[in-house]
């Protein structure tokens, strides 16, 4: 049985890796160089990474208390809240974009802030669709922290908030960082909701789509490859550091 499982697993792993390998290694080096010299592409990639990082930080601040409540307490409506958190991963992203647009578009306009075609719009789209990755990962991390550690910390003089900061967070940081990484990476790939709210300034997925529609595959492929390489580099560095320091 083990051999059959290995064969089946290999087929799946090849299916997952070959398109990426073909994309990255199918482009001549001089095309990479010219893509890296293209300001529009680089600015788009930096914008994507930056805004995805901002949305991750905001969800970190807002999501950790929620993740902790879900991990530690049983209360009426808990299943409903957990389902609510997971809904964005199930609905079409374009639908999510429209929902965000009709909810915040006018409101922002009314108070003189920009939402449509702004980085705020991109950030909201990323936060809405990627938050479950961070919240769920942090929740699992909190569940793995023995409640007795918290009790002992309180008996030693720490209040609930100090216990959360000094005991719960340090002992669940691996899951929290993994969740941040997953959310950030998911944010980088957000297209459906972003394209509804903010076509300009273009995040990398929108730029890839734009180049594909207007100039064809030859112009969109290098942008896609560079974006993937950048993401993989950041992903590997953070994962490495996270594992090393835990």
């Amino acid at each position, binding site marked *: 049985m083990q051999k059959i499982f290995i064969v089946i697993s290999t087929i799946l792993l090849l299916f997952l890796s070959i398109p990426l390998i073909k994309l990255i290694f199918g482009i001549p080096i001089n095309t990479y160089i010219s893509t890296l010299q293209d300001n529009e592409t680089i600015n788009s990639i930096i914008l994507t990474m930056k805004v995805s990082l901002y949305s991750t930080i905001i969800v970190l601040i807002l999501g950790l208390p929620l993740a902790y409540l879900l991990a530690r307490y049983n209360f009426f409506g808990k299943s409903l809240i957990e389902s609510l958190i997971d809904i964005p991963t199930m609905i079409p992203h374009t639908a999510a974009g429209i929902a965000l647009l009709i909810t915040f578009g006018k409101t922002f306009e009314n108070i003189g802030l920009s939402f449509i075609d702004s980085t705020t719009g991109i950030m909201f789209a990323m936060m809405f669709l990627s938050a479950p990755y961070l919240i769920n990962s942090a929740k699992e991390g909190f569940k793995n922290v023995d409640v007795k550690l918290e009790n*002992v*910390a309180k008996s*030693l*003089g720490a*209040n609930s908030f*100090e216990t959360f900061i000094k005991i719960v967070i340090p*002992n669940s940081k691996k899951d929290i960082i993994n969740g941040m990484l997953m959310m950030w990476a998911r944010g980088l790939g957000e297209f459906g909701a972003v394209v509804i709210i903010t076509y300009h300034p273009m995040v990398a997925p929108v730029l890839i789509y734009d180049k594909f529609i207007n100039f064809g595959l030859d112009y969109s492929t290098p942008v896609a490859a560079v974006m993937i390489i950048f993401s993989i580099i950041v992903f590997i560095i953070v994962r490495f550091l996270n594992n090393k320091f835990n």
Partner: protein
Amino acid sequence: MLIINNLFLKKGNFKLNIPFIEIGDKEYFVLLGKTGSGKTLLLESIIGFHKIEGEIIFNNKNITNLPPQKRHFGFLYQDFALFPHLNVEKNIRFSEKYHSKNSALFNDLVKFLQIKHLLTRDIKNLSGGEKQRVALARAIYSKPKLLLLDEPLSAIDPTMRNEIMKNLKELPKRYNLSIIHVTHNFREASYLANKLAIILNGSILQIGDAKTVLKQPNSLEVAKFLGFKNIFPVSLLGFENSHSYFSIDPNQIIISKEKLNFDFCFEGVIKEIMGITDHYKIFVEVMNNQFFIKASKHILDSLKIKNNQKIYICFNKKDIVFI
């Protein structure tokens, strides 16, 4: 002094119901009970991890609604709950952020509990005994007036237990604190306790001076829990008194082929003889009651008795415990 008045707590189907407990200064109080009897829940209620009905008074102050961090009680869990992200010294010094730093106390604890060589170690690499000493140091370093110990010796290698028990017994006087120690181990209880309570199914069945509770159970339930053997109705002895049952230690019963000059001698029939390494367990039926007797191999061999043989079992009144 700690006083618990009408403490009530319901967790699922389990109810903890403690009408009254009083624990004096520097007293070593042991709460003895089976697993699932509510011992840990009571400790956690005393320190404030659960909201309870009733009241807890400590040094004349009602602390029922105080959060754990304001009660200044130390707590030691069965698995010690050392903080995995901190080394030994940082674990011990954790309370420094909330209480004043005390180098003299720190040094004394390190010396008393012999943990100097462990201070820079990661807690993952400690044995059960080392973890226990570190957790104890961490709890005492926060200068508690009351130390709550939840089965502190259960994860300790049996060879280390005697030494640690000696340390525990010394704590109240050395660090000016009272201790509540929960355990299911009679040996621990009889060695450590000044005062003892028996808890079963969330209720205290007997409380008092340790020696009295261990030697004179006040109910059939307590006697059975404490491992008393040969529990029979008092009427078997041929008289009535204020007690319903009596118990006689299997080691205090003499077995003989003839009636001896003891306060009580009963004729019975040997039902079973079980040979154990250095002694025999003999089961004798007397008027439909089965007595259990322990006898040395030497005595039994000299008597040359067999199953279904008639025999006398004799004991004195001074060895009887009335229940």
